[in-house]
């Protein structure tokens, strides 16, 4: 066949949101989209995804496919792709996909075009370079299937122009041949370090600080601003990596996802790992010395200047306005 395989990922027993977005991306490439659900028990996932008008749904099922292992998923999907011969294989760009999709693509002599944020005629796929400062346009030129993963939020989750009353897609099974000896890693149960004591997700206002603050000794500057705003204090990853603020205050793909009414980004350049965690905020303010920093692409209001001057001035202005 030709067409598009979209590999859907399970999140807490359901199809994850970025998988719906990947299905939308797949449908923009070609009408003949096959949704693939994979695991040890895929019946309910298949039923869930079949609610969408699609070409068909394939259940790739094997007891060795839970819990997730890179080896298990790579072997099973390699067999499926050899059988289906798609033109495109589309993934949601998740931690799990990053763990196995590059190896799977390499098995077909292909390079995954990862973290795609848009597509144009050709097709040409856009992805970010240089921490989001530039965009690169990639054209697939291989003679095997083209593998791509799409960034969270880059495509709508809802199907465009879904024909009402369209027939449900047929669901079929694919049983990969897997042997326990082929699975070389032993994953443990997921755990959390400690009970989360800060729920940034429900905060109405957040002041978030990044590398621009330069030193832990400068943190009172943003703490004062947060106090003046009645806001929670948060940070981008490097601040938590350095131990200046606890990990639970981290916003971004490896931390919390937030959507407050007001998000003030101080000295944060806006790498994509941070943006995915906060771009749903209602009003975004960015304070950064670099006027070309990607944070200004998502900001509603920006001040390009030295945060060591701007932040105290803002704290004073807020106090005066109260």
């Amino acid at each position, binding site marked *: 066949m030709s067409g598009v395989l979209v590999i859907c990922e399970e999140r807490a027993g359901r199809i994850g949101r970025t998988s719906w977005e990947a299905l939308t991306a797949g449908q923009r490439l070609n009408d003949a989209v096959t949704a693939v659900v994979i695991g040890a028990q895929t019946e309910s996932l298949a039923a869930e995804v079949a609610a969408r008008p699609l070409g068909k749904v394939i259940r790739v099922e094997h007891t060795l496919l839970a819990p997730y292992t*890179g*080896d298990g998923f790579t072997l099973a999907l390699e067999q499926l792709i050899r059988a289906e011969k798609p033109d495109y294989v589309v993934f949601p760009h*998740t931690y799990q996909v*990053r*763990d196995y999709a*590059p*190896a799977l693509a390499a*098995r077909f002599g*292909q*390079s995954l075009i990862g973290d795609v944020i848009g597509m144009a005629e050709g097709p*040409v796929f856009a992805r*970010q*370079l240089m*921490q989001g*400062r*530039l*965009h*690169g*346009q*990639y*054209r*697939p*030129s*291989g003679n095997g299937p083209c593998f791509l993963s799409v960034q969270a939020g880059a495509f709508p989750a809802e199907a465009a122009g879904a024909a009402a009353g369209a027939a449900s897609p047929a669901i079929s099974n694919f049983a990969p041949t897997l042997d326990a000896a082929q699975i070389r*890693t*032993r*994953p443990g*149960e997921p*755990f959390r370090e400690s009970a989360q004591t800060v729920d940034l997700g429900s905060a109405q*206002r957040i002041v978030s600080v990044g590398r621009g603050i330069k030193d832990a000794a400068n943190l009172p500057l943003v703490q004062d601003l947060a106090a003046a*705003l009645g806001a929670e204090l948060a940070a981008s*990853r*490097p601040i938590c*990596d350095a*131990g200046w603020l606890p*990990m639970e205050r981290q916003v971004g793909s*490896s*931390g*919390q*996802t937030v959507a407050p009414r*007001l998000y003030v980004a101080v000295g944060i350049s806006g790498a*994509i790992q941070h943006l995915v965690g906060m771009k749903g905020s209602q*009003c975004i*303010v960015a304070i950064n010395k*670099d006027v070309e920093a990607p944070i*200004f*692409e*998502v*900001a*509603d*209001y920006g*001040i390009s*200047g030295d945060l060591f001057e701007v932040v*105290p*001035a*803002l704290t*004073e*202005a*807020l106090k005066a*306005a109260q």
Partner: protein
Amino acid sequence: MKILVAIKQVPERDAPVRIGASGKWIEEADLQFALNEPDAYALEEALQLKDKHGGEVVAVSAGPERVGSTLREALAKGADRAIHIVCDDLGERDALGVARLLAGAIKPEDPDLVLTGLQSEDLGHGQTGVIVAELLGLPHATLILHVEKTETGIKAKREMEEGWFQFIETSTPAVLTMQSGGNKLRYATLMGIKRAKTKEMRQIAAAELGADATPTAVLESIVLPQKKKSTQMLSGSPKEAAAALVEKLKAEARVL
């Protein structure tokens, strides 16, 4: 334990990047380069494993002549020797093409462990380590914060999304891609910098490795991002800009 650490030289974090004349790559003429930060964490973990268990740490990097300075930095921090894959067309190769070079140089070294950062700060593919494992036929794990040696291999702490972690065990040899933040990075000491000058740095021409350089994903052009939102920039002195912002947040955005 013999550990190979694959590192990359990337433009400095705050360097002003401009699109080059070809429109296919950045203008490198005035750029300063530095060690890719996630790779610095991979090197740190390797050096800590060596501190605990002994063995050898070998840094490997692909790129033009300038990459030698970043390898020298790794030697100054404590790596025992370095391998420089001399390659002037790194930017034209895709992730698979670069991984082929690294795997070609690593394979004859027969290491117990291969560590690399989870992604580069310039291209950000986040694929190199996983593909190197595939090409070498080794097990791998990604987004690793810490590595412990076990009797049969290693046990690694892996970061998952939204604040979750897991331990993952595998036999060695294995390939791990390291997340940042697991360790405190060391600085090179003066003694280390002095010693680095006498350590072995072997050059291998990319052509010697016979790796296929033809990309299956061609970077056709580089463009400036198009703004999706219209950002209102508030100008004036810090005091004026701050006052203007408070007014906007009150009257326009209505979030105060």
